């Protein structure tokens, strides 16, 4: 390995190691009950984020200097089972992952600086930054993943930390309910991704993106999976992306996620987390290319989401909800761009939108104080006067949550509670006692 190659490897390793170290220190502190001071936490976050950002910039500089467009940090096989299975820990710096990692570090660093003041003397200061560290680790792992299993590990970390941040305000029940809803949607998304990952792993004999998507440089890699497999795996990946990026019919979780504190809304839902599904589609775009039907479905899903979000934004009555739907409009358009095959346009659109939206979210609390009292939106007033069914439809956020609730959640809960009640009766009868179960009459409030 040349000196530059070694330097690139070490820098790439540092990109992953710095959020790992931060998560370890803050996580271990939470586990052992050691309370670090606010200034210590802020310093740790600042220096680890700067270290990660600096290392990413160094990798980029080496790539530009040497003309190398792909740097691989291969940490070897994590698990190997003869010829049956291997799980490689591999990170790839290429035209897609480097901009996304830079975006993640830049926005996360800026928002950490904001949050260290915004959450000053808040009881959950330590908890916020522990979740922040997990989120950053998940984002960098996902964006730089060279294998689909590694991507999945980061994907799940992002999901858990995001859901817990939605429920950050522990003293109120509403954020906890929203967090549970977000987590449920994420679990659907995770399940779709793990199925797709296992199917791809099985068909290619490994989870390496080189084997799955062809060894060409992004976005020119060409995968040639059988058409039926491309359909099935592509559909699963589209479901995974839809869950993570709040595309229809999962859009309802995004405004709910605004229950979290402003810094988390800015970094997680406005800027980074909501774009992760689109990033996945960009990463696996060679699979989409293999199926025109999948591309058409991606475009349709993106445009439908953009149209719905644009209309819904007009009737929102608070700034953060309006911003979340505005965000979703752009995410829908970016998804459509991915489906149309405009990879660079989608990537640039994603980066610009994330940066703009993070700034808008951070400005949202100040706007409330600075702006003179005035109607939130003129189109809202116009629609409200017309009392149209469209207005009601949009006020109810397209009935999307209701649709999921009535079609899937309620029947599932009713069936499960029915079985639970039957079991209790059966057990009580067997034990010779009188059944006293009231499980069947339980409410589903905690899921809504």
């Amino acid at each position, binding site marked *: 390995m040349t000196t530059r190659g070694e330097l690139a490897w070490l820098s790439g390793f540092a990109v992953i190691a710095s959020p790992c170290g931060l998560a370890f220190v803050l996580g271990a502190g939470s586990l052992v009950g050691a309370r670090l001071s606010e200034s210590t936490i802020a310093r740790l976050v600042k220096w680890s984020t700067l270290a990660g950002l600096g290392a990413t910039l160094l990798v980029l500089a080496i790539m530009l200097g040497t003309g190398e467009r792909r740097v691989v940090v291969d940490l070897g096989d994590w698990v*190997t*089972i003869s010829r049956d*299975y291997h799980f490689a820990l591999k990170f790839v710096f290429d035209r897609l992952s480097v901009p996304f990692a830079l975006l993640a570090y830049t926005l996360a660093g800026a928002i950490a600086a904001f949050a260290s003041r915004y959450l000053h003397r808040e009881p959950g200061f330590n908890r916020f930054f522990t979740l922040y560290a997990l989120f950053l680790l998940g984002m960098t792992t996902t964006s730089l993943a060279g294998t689909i299993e590694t991507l999945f590990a980061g994907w799940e970390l992002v999901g858990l930390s995001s859901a817990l941040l939605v429920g950050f305000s522990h*003293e109120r029940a509403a954020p906890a309910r929203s967090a*549970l809803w977000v987590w449920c949607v994420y679990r659907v998304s995770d*399940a779709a991704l793990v199925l797709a990952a296992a199917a791809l792993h099985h068909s290619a004999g490994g989870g390496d993106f080189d084997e799955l998507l062809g060894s060409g440089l992004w976005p020119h890699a060409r995968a040639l999976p059988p058409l039926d497999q491309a359909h099935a795996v592509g559909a699963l990946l589209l479901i995974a992306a839809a869950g993570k990026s709040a595309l229809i019919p999962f859009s309802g979780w995004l405004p709910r996620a605004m229950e979290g504190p402003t810094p988390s809304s800015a970094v997680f839902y406005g800027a980074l987390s909501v774009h992760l599904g689109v990033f996945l589609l960009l990463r696996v775009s060679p699979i989409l290319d293999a199926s025109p039907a999948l591309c058409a479905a991606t475009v349709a899903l993106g445009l439908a989401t953009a149209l719905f979000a644009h209309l819904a934004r007009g009737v929102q009555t608070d700034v953060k909800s309006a911003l979340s739907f505005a965000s979703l409009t752009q995410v829908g358009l970016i998804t459509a761009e991915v489906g149309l095959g405009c990879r660079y346009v989608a990537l640039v659109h994603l980066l610009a939108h994330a940066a703009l939206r993070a700034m808008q979210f951070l400005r949202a609390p100040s706007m409330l104080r600075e702006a003179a009292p005035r109607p939130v939106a003129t189109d809202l007033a116009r629609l409200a006067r017309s009392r149209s069914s469209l207005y009601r439809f949009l006020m109810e956020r397209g009935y999307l949550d209701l649709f999921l609730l009535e079609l899937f959640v309620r029947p599932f809960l009713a069936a499960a509670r029915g079985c639970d009640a039957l079991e209790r009766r059966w*057990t009580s009868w067997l*034990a010779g006692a009188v059944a006293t179960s009231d499980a069947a009459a339980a409410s589903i409030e905690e899921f809504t």
Partner: protein
Amino acid sequence: MNEAFPSWLEAAILTACLGAIGASTARARLRAFAWGMTFTSAAAGCALLACVQYYWFSGTDPGVVDDWQSRFLGDRLLALDDLSAAMVPAVALLHWVTAFATPRARMRRFSYTWSLAALALRLALFSCRDVRLLVALLTVEAALPGFELRAQRRAPRVYAVHLGVFAILLIVGACGLGSSSTSSHWGVPVVAAAVLIRCGAIPFHCWVTDWIENASSGIGLLFVAPLSGIYALARLVVPSASDNLLRAIVALGVLTAIYAGALAVVQREARRLLAYLVISGGALVLVGFGLHTRLSITGALCLWFSTLLSIGGFGLAIRALEARFGPLALVAHRGLYDHAPTLAVCFLLTGLAGVGFPGTLGFIATELVVESALHAGPVVGLGVVAATALGGVAVVRAYLLLFTGARHASPIALGIGPRERAALLIVAALILGGGLFPHAGVAGRQRAATALLDARAALHPLPARDARR
């Protein structure tokens, strides 16, 4: 080790037996605690040394040729192999952390005599290779909890009916196992049925919820977390079962995992949630064994180990919460986070480890089972993934209900005690350490899977050869 002396494994069993006798004579609870902890620590230490010794000698059990067991019993009945070498210290550790973390307020309810006797029994069970002795140990192990239920003045009928049928089927099936030279034994399906009852497969799972609800929390956990039925499955069923029987086990395992996952989501008591997570975890292990490929059995063995630790840790977290806040109803937000932040973290960590969250011990295990399940068919794969997804929802729902909401008002400090913290940290360290550095553990489980498939290949030449691919 000198052949005239017992090996570390036998020393562990003897120490636990002696400790049980000693603890039964102690009347004061603190004295019983001191006695119990001394002997539990010694037994756990010996079990750990037995494991180290096994791997130190690269898979050969010292003193195999002419040890005291062979001399006095005519055969070597208790010995470690690749299947049991990791499980024996894990079971001992579970007993140790459970005894160590017993809060002072719960010492009266936690019987150190029972715990040490059960430890001796389980160490013998998990190292037993003789069919008759294994059946006897499983039967005795199933009988002991009946006394615990009586001691708690709870109706033991649900438990007695299920485990009674289990014991009868096990004994009858063992009679039909015959010699190991052929696979066509009528006893194998009967033993498999017994194992399914012991593992809580539907529709024979109600005893698990009943037991966990009615037993004292520590004793209840110690009986279900090791998944003793899985050991019987690996020893008695997998080597000689027909492919159709294993397919039936897979189908029942998938149904059980989904059903238990779904019911875990709607539980209104933390103990019942624990019970359904145990059932779901055990069912996924059944699926892995039932698929009988090297990948699936390796995954099942990893999952068994991770389920033992994660369910153990999850149960300890629930037990610590119950000691402070009473029975934990999952009906409203209780706001316990500020009182017990470490418990909240451990609750979430151990719960998510049980459903294969990345970075934890269960991640690779679940990956392996999902991978092999998808290889078997999309429905099986979808079932396994759905079960883990439901488990994740159940754990986070319980976390949010217990730890968020308006702060629980209490005039006294309700923080975690140092012993509980140490016990939970040990479990958490193992879960995270094993999750971040899984290679050595997986390699050991792979050897055990290969040995199991070799044993199966001797009875089923063609299918087993296919399975080795």
